[in-house]
């Protein structure tokens, strides 16, 4: 029996969906690929470390203007961070010293770890297609 074959457009769309889901909710890309254990571990770990960063340094550590390099890393955690950044930039929340440093490192690392998870989940989605097609599409595409 012939295995289902995805067109190149469908394949690109699936890769895009996996990437966007992984960005929207950490681990959701893996969940979409039916890698539930992996998805739960990533979601819990990243949420804990990001939450800990905000708790230690206050939500003021998300600063789109004052510390934009960290902000870029933090946004990799989820697009919701941009909404939080917009809210924080209008609020003037206190952030200083060692807690700010630790908070920025925790939230930034959480974002960069999520970027790694997004890249790996998209690559996994790509490999699933190759396995489904028996490697045919590698040459075709």
């Amino acid at each position: 029996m012939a295995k289902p074959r995805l067109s190149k457009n469908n394949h690109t769309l699936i890769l895009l969906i996996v990437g966007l889901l992984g960005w929207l909710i950490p681990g959701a890309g893996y969940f979409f690929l039916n890698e539930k254990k992996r998805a739960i571990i990533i979601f819990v770990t990243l949420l804990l470390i990001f939450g800990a960063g905000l708790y230690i340094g206050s939500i003021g550590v998300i600063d789109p203007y004052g510390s934009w390099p960290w902000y870029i890393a933090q946004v990799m955690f989820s697009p919701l961070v941009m909404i939080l950044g917009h809210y924080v930039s209008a609020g003037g929340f206190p952030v200083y010293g060692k807690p700010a440093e630790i908070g920025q490192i925790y939230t930034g690392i959480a974002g960069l770890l999520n970027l790694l998870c997004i890249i790996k989940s998209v690559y996994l989605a790509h490999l699933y297609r190759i396995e489904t097609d028996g490697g045919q599409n590698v040459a075709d595409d």
Partner: protein
Amino acid sequence: MSLMINYVIATFTSPENIGTNPQSLFWLLPLAAAISIGYKATKLSEIKAGSFFKDVVGLFGSIVGFMAITALVLYAITWLATK
């Protein structure tokens, strides 16, 4: 309910009190643990409790061990330079 929500939000609006002292270096431990768990969750081909835990502990030990060695080397260089 709204009082509880306000209380939870309020805990995130002011920084914790963490001094600049040697003990504050221990804040690297939860981060190293999270990096180990997150990295191994993406790296392993199959997630099984036993092997996953073993790999995470191994990576966590390597990160902390390497940082401790680096700290010792830097401390030794500083000691030699300032004695």
